[in-house]
């Protein structure tokens, strides 16, 4: 049964942080690219936000159960696209992550993330249990491991880590037993040294830079250091819009995308950061609240999947900006410039809206 959702049923409390963050992001992109060869990048960002909003509205109209119904097909599509990008993708910054679709350079892993949320929600809700067996864990591992492996091969370590975190959150909510959790941690810890040999040189460099910044002051460690200088020199009140020397003179790397928060911290100070972090906090808490109100477990898994991905993005990106984590190339949701990223977040929020609108039905 379908209910005609009215405009007042829309999740306005969710839209407040979303629009707020987008607006701050647009202004910060404006500040970071003024007068350079990327001048006017904020208008592109606005276009994507507009497209994203439309996509969100469309997706919120379609019953999420219908989406979940298509999970196997979507799963195959995502695998196909990931293989396709490996074969035909465009190489940027030494990684094959983009597919040229004419109107968009699609970052396939962003779409894959969304699909994995759906697939995971479908699979976990099908289990109909409160306790996950080892066999269940294995099946989830294989199911999500396959696309993750393809993403790792691009290589896109950051997105792969986000998916791992997403699966972890899903398992936790699906009834992961503590002993299994501990076992998985131990296993991961043992596998970590082996993983080191699989890493690409630039990934190794980033990790080295993180743990021993003084040795690589010119490259990744340099980026982290410049980001910290930008943040620290901003002080409490900030240097003002367009006044951050670190940001304006190009010391902050990719200041319109991955390091957008460093530029904001420099120009708007701790006050600006506080506003942004509180907006993210309210966004995430609203998502968890929506999950708690979900009409069924599938809806809950969908919303929490979205929350996990957004939350991990915020955590990893912010920690990178203040030097708590290595540089991984994870954008800040809703604020960093990037069509795929913006589109993904809005589509994901469309699913969340969907779940909220249908909380009383069935």
């Amino acid at each position, binding site marked *: 049964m379908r209910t005609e959702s009215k405009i007042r049923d829309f999740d306005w409390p969710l839209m407040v942080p979303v629009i707020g963050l987008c607006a701050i992001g647009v202004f910060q992109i404006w500040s970071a690219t003024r007068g350079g060869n990327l001048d006017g990048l904020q208008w592109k960002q606005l276009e994507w936000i507009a497209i994203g909003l439309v996509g969100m509205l469309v997706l919120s109209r379609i019953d999420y*159960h219908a989406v*979940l*119904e298509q999970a196997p097909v979507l799963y195959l599509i995502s695998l196909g696209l990931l293989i396709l990008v490996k074969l035909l993708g465009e190489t940027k910054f030494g990684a094959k992550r983009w597919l040229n679709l004419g109107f968009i350079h699609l970052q396939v892993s962003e779409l894959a993330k969304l699909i994995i949320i759906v697939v995971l929600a*479908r699979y976990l*809700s*099908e289990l*109909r249990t*409160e306790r996950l067996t080892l066999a269940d864990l294995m099946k989830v591992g294989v199911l999500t491991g396959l696309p993750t492996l393809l993403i790792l091969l691009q290589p896109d370590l950051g997105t792969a880590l986000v998916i791992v975190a997403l699966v972890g*959150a899903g398992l*936790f*909510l*699906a*009834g992961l037993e503590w002993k299994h959790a501990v076992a998985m941690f131990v296993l991961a810890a043992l596998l970590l040294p082996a993983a080191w040999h699989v890493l690409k040189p630039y990934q190794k460099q980033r990790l080295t830079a993180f743990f021993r910044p003084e040795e690589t002051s*010119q*490259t990744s460690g340099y980026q982290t250091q*410049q980001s*910290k*200088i*930008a*943040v*620290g*020199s*901003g*002080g*409490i009140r900030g240097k003002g819009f367009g006044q951050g*020397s*670190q940001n304006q*003179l*190009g*010391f902050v790397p990719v200041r319109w995308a991955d390091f957008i928060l460093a530029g904001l*911290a*420099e120009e708007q*100070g*701790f006050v600006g*950061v*506080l506003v942004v*972090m*509180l907006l*993210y*906090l309210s966004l*995430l*808490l609203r998502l*968890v*609240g929506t*999950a*708690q109100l*979900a009409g*069924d*477990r*599938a809806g*809950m898994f969908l919303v*929490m999947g979205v*929350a996990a991905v957004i*939350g991990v993005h*915020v*955590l990893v990106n*912010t*920690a990178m900006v*203040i030097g*708590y984590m290595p540089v991984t190339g994870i954008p800040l949701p809703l604020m960093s410039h990037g069509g795929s990223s913006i589109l993904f977040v809005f589509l994901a929020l469309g699913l969340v809206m969907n779940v909220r609108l249908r909380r009383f039905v069935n």
Partner: protein
Amino acid sequence: MSDWQGRDSKLPQGRLTACSYAVVAIVCLLLFGFWKLQVLDSEYFAQLAERNRIRSIPVIAPRGRMLDREGRVLVDNYPSFSVLLLREDAPLLEQHLPEIAEGLGLEPDDLRQQIDAARGLPRFNPIVVKPEATPGDIAFIESHRADLPLLELLMVHRRKYPSEGFMAHAIGYVGEVNEKQIEASGGKLRPGDIAGKFGLEKQYNDTLMGEDGMRRVIVNSLGKEVGRLEQKEAVPGHPIHLTIDYDLQQIAESSLGPQQGAAVVLDPRNGEVLAMASHPAFDPKDFAVRVSKEQWQQLNEDEAHPLMNRAIQAQLAPGSTFKVVMATAMLESKAVPEDFSVTCYGAEDFYGRQFKCHIFGKGTHGHVDLHDALVKSCDIFFYNLGKRLGIDRISFYATQLGLGKKTGIDLPGEQEGLVPSEAWKERVYKQKWFPGETISVAIGQGAITSTPLQLAHTIGGVAMGGQFHRPHLLLGAKDTDEPSFPISEATTEKVSQGMFGVVNEAGGTAHLVHLDGVEFCGKTGSAQVISNEGKARAGHVSGKQLVDNAWFVGFAPRRNPEIVVAVLVEHGVHGATAAAPVARDIIKAYYDKKSHQENKAYTVEMQHYEMDGAQTPQAVAAMVQAAPEPAKKDKE
């Protein structure tokens, strides 16, 4: 409906709530991170940010010029560019190194060496990789500004010296300061600064050197200048006015020509150095930028010693020019009667050894008194005089007249020469003085040595009746009066009369160089480079090295002299033919110029009187004050 739909399972509310707490915890942790950077360590990072964006670029102060006594420019500056290499982006630098080396015409290994050498300096300090950019270099840098953002041009001032080594030794040269100079400067000099290394450039470095300014610029992450902040202006160095007369210097240089030697011209009334030349010379331009190792080695190993300022550093036997000192000693000490005379047979035995006169083999001087002995430079007379005076008396007068000690000229590296004495020999050789040595010293041979400057100073002092002035190159220098060693008028008269005869009497050794209408006095000298016995021993040494040095000292006019000249021509054989003509050219130029100026001054003076009515009151007052004696008498 599929089996996965349905409401049978309830939601894991507990774990969802745990997620909320996790979110809050994570946000708090991140905010703590920002708090630490932005509030607690904010000042530290603000400093780092400032250091990032601001670079200080020196604004090089031009050195002071050197002007001659009439304000003519001897040493000037010209603008030039140094190529700076920015080293902040090491990978980019590494990548473009071959390209940069090629573009600037440098050896890649050489460039790498320079970069390695600067490893210890802060990264934000650019280094000079090419001190003097060619137009090609400038074009290369300008055209690659976008794709090679590692090179910058720094405007500097370079020294423009006279060409062909003109006055090179007195002027000196500049170069990059060494560690010793930096230490000695007490923080005033920094690495890379250009300072005087030799000659007047070194002597008056503090005056000549300005104070570099500082331009503070905003740079972007590539090190490119994007804006300017306040600027500290450079304070240019002060010019120095020299006592040198460009016209006389030119004559000294050209007259000395390719001969190896030196010429010094002093004003005996005040010690002003009117000209100072030393040949062979070097080209100070070679040092103005950066002297290459090979060039330096070549200059140092050259047997003609082009880096030596012979005027103040050549310590050689003065030869017969020393007879002026002997004559003064004789008349002043009164140890020998005024009418002392000897008969010259061309040679005479002293202490069992034969000493020859220069006329030996060509005749004899016959009966000679002091005047004749000076005019004809009779050695036999001075051998006998030396024997009578004894070494200690000779030594005393030579020292009192300025030999054997530095004159104190305002140039670095002056040598003091040597006046031997019994005590000296005892001290240095632990041997007794042989009376035979006195005989050699009496004609300026043996152990006695002096520099051309010392001789000019000494002769000038004698001609001035014992008044000495410290030779100096800085116009208006203070405290140039030296303790005088009064010589009686009669002595001065006699000695200068003898020197007048040398040039003006028919039998004088320098009669060839006499000048009509000028009371030109002088004394020739031919000094053995090595004793006759030594000559025999060193038979294999090339002949040129053993040929006698030619000397000439002279002054004019005979009474109240205005100019004194000392000329040394190494291996010039005869003072009269090699050295005296140089002195004559200089004295002649001095008088030509003087008479020319007097004519001109006379004309100007006439104009003054004609324009009298138009004078301002101040000018008139000044004229009255400056007016000669008769004006006073008129008032009385």
